[in-house]
Each structure stands twice: as structure tokens, then as C-alpha cells.
């Protein structure tokens, strides 16, 4: 099964150039003051979701599922590897967000309170990425990447609305993110834990599928 995770890693690296290019564009737009930094942060959560979706698309193109299920890990190995890699992507993006926000906080000379706000606002999109993956992965195993992309758009739209709406509502209520420190800090863990039941749902789907 480690081989299948390695395969996902190689494919993600092959997509890396495009991701970096898009990140640079967002960074430039942020520096130019067209977008605020939260937009760049949201990009991390989008990547968190896009990488698994693109992996499904690559697999379909190569008709990999059929072949992979004929390997010694069987169908269970295919599902497990995809969840393991997705978890690594989610954890990686969380770490990246935390580091990015800490660096931004230190560079801007933000006070402790502001730094905490920055950190939490960085964690939310990564946690959102995990939660969306927990919902999307079984759908991708069921319907494939073509239909899965439609669900992805829906998820992104709803999620972006929830995040930006929630942040605006908090601001209007005069609350800062740091006042919701505990529930927000728990979100990444909730996102990661949500992948566990999601795995069993996806496995159930994939075990029944005729390849």
C-alpha cells in the first residue's frame, strides 16, 4: 500500500508547478492590495480538496482503479492509500497555514491577540479542506471525478459562503476569532477525525463497485 501512496505523491509533485504558479498569482494580487490575505489562505483549502480530485481524474485516465484493485492490496488498499495521502495533504496544508500565519504575524509586528486571530483564521480553511474531503472522497469513489467535480464546486461554494459569512457575522457581533479559541482550534481535529467514518463509507462503496 505504501506504493500506492507513493504513486499519489509522484502525481501530486507533477502537478506542483501549476499549483505554485497559481499561488504566485494570488500572492501578487494580495501584495497589490486587490485581495486580502484571507484569499490566499483560502487557496490552501482549495488545494487541499483539488489534489485528491485531480488524483481521481489521473486514475480514471489511466484506468488505474481496475489495475490497482488487482494488486495484492486489493480494493481495501486502494481506498486506504487514497485516505492516507489525503490525510497527509490535509496535515501538510495545516502546518503550512500555521507557519505562514506565524511568519505573517511576526513580520507585521502583530500583538499576541492579533497573532492568535491570524493563526486561527489560517487553521479554518485547512480544517474546512479536511471536512470537505471527508464528504467528497466517498462521492468520488462512487461517481468518479467528472461528477465529483460538480460536487466539488458545490462544496467550495457552500464552504466559502460559510467561512466568509461566519467571519463577517463575528465581526458584526464585535467578536474576535480568539474569543472562540477552543472551538476553532478543535476544528482541524474534527476535520481529520471526520475522515475516519468517511473512509468506511468509501470502502463500502468501492467494495461493491464493479470495475
Amino acid at each position, binding site marked *: 500500500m505504501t506504493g*500506492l501512496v507513493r*504513486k499519489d505523491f509522484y502525481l501530486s509533485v507533477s502537478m506542483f508547478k501549476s499549483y505554485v504558479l497559481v499561488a504566485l498569482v494570488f500572492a501578487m494580487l494580495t501584495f497589490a492590495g486587490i485581495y486580502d490575505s484571507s484569499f490566499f489562505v483560502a487557496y490552501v483549502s482549495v488545494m487541499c480538496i483539488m489534489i485528491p480530485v485531480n488524483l481521481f481524474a489521473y486514475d480514471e485516465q489511466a484506468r*488505474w482503479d*481496475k489495475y490497482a484493485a*488487482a494488486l*495484492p*492490496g*486489493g480494493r481495501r488498499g486502494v481506498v486506504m492509500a487514497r485516505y492516507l495521502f489525503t490525510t497527509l495533504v490535509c496535515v501538510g496544508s495545516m502546518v503550512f497555514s500555521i507557519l505562514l500565519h506565524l511568519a505573517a504575524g511576526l513580520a507585521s509586528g502583530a500583538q499576541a491577540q492579533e497573532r492568535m486571530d491570524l493563526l486561527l483564521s489560517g487553521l479554518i480553511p485547512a480544517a474546512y479542506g479536511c471536512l470537505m474531503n471527508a464528504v467528497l472522497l466517498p462521492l468520488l469513489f462512487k461517481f468518479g471525478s467528472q461528477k465529483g467535480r460538480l460536487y466539488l464546486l458545490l462544496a467550495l461554494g457552500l464552504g466559502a459562503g460559510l467561512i466568509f459569512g461566519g467571519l463577517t457575522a463575528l465581526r458584526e457581533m464585535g467578536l474576535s476569532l480568539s474569543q472562540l479559541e477552543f472551538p476553532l482550534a478543535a476544528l482541524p481535529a474534527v476535520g481529520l477525525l471526520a475522515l475516519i467514518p468517511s473512509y468506511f463509507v468509501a470502502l463500502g462503496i468501492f467494495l461493491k463497485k*464493479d470495475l
Partner: protein
Amino acid sequence: MTNAIEVRGLCKDYGDFQLRDVDLTLPGGSILGLIGENGAGKSTTIKAILGLIRRNGGSIRIFGREILGDDPSYKEDIGVVLDEASFHDPLKVPQVGRVLSGVYRDWDSARFDAYVERFRLPRDKKIKEFSRGMKQKLSIATALSHHPRLLILDEATSGLDPVVRDELLDEFLAFIQDEDHAVLISSHITSDLEKAADYVTYLHRGRVALQGAKDELLETYGRLVCSRADLQKIDPALLLGTRVNQFGCEALVKDRRAFQRRCPGLTVDPVSLEEIMVFTVRGDGK
């Protein structure tokens, strides 16, 4: 000796297509060719053996062990080449090797490198730059590099030029020199199977239309060319299929020797697997 594959009463219902009561036996040290027209059920049979579809009935044994549910452990012994290339366009050959070294317990990197060398596969090119033949060779190199006992090849030689096909068939023949090894190969290129197969199973419309030792089948069956008047005199029980055209009649004879004893005046020629297939499909019901 234990058979490499034993399939009994295999059934799969897709609604518009049914695989019905397929029996198949592949003894060790031999190659079984699965032939049939497109959509006859060859790939469905292979998928059932590999556990890629849920069968509606029947049993499958691999090296004597019954395959039940989703236990994939028997797949360590199997090298698989499927109809379409299974490796991703952005990958390179060494990456494929590293991926599969984390999949198979007995992956042999030196052996894989040797096959890559022998098949003259470029290591620095992405798979998207490979020709179909190169992709198939890569699939075969991976299928052989983990010390499998059984090769399952679905249309592994289709779309390849005769030189490459010949090269690959030699590889399969070398593989079965060990009596513990066996090859199941599906193909609609019957000339390949005539060259390499020891046994043949012919699937037609989801059923086994014909099976047995290849040499025996080619020895037993024959092609009769005669006039309409001659054909009318022949007991239909002696024939499997007939084709009538403006120049005369052709028929597939079930038992060449018995036929010649009964009808000494008529000539029966040897038949190829392709002719057996064509007669059965086109002469079906005639």
C-alpha cells in the same frame, strides 16, 4: 499437480449481457488462450478471476485456494496486464518501479531493471511519450518482476506490431518453462494463441462454445468446402456451422476423421482457430 486456475459455473449478469456457466481449467506449466469476439465475455471472466467484479454464481480457485469475498492475498502470486495501459502519463519508468516495490512483497528491482533494459524502455521519458507497444512492454515487465506464478493477460498483445507480439509471446513461453507457472491470456488475435497456447477456451455470447487442448482441437475440427448439393446430403449433426455463398458452401466439421470415414468423397482441410471462431459467429444458427 494443482491447477493454477479452476473456474466452475461462473455467472455474471449485467442485464444486457450475461456470462453463463463458464468452466475453465488452467494446469500448471501451460498457457490457456481465451478467445472470442468482442463482447463475448473474455474480459468479464478475467475480471471475475481478479475479483474486479462481483460474480452472480460459480466458484474460482487459484492454485487450489478458493477465492471468496475481498481477500486479495492470492494476488501476490499473479502478474497482471490489462487491456488498457494502467500507468499514469506523468510517471517515468523508475517511478513505476518504486511504486510497485511498495506494493508487491517480492518485488525484484534488479529483475525489473533487466526487463526494462531488454525491452529497451527509456527511463527518462514520461509514459505519455510512450507508444502503445512500449506501454504494453512496461506492463509486462512489471507483471514479471515480482516472481509471479501466474500471469493473467487481457488483450496484452492487441494493437501491437507482429515483431513486438512475437517478442512478448516468447517471453510467456519462457515463463511457463517452470511447471509451477501458468499463463491465462485473452486475445482476439487467434494466430498468437495458435503459436503459444496449450489450451483454448472459446467464449461466444457469454458461454463456452468450445474448449480443449489446442492441438487436439486443430486436429479434430476441419473445414469442408463443397457444393450446395453435397451439403444437403450431409448429416447436419456432423457440422458445427455452415456458410453458403454464390460459389459454394463451407462448413465447420466437428470430427475430421469421423467425417472422412462417412463421406470419403469430400475433402476436409485443416482449420485455424480464427476459422473456428468465424464459423461459430457467422454460421451461428445456420
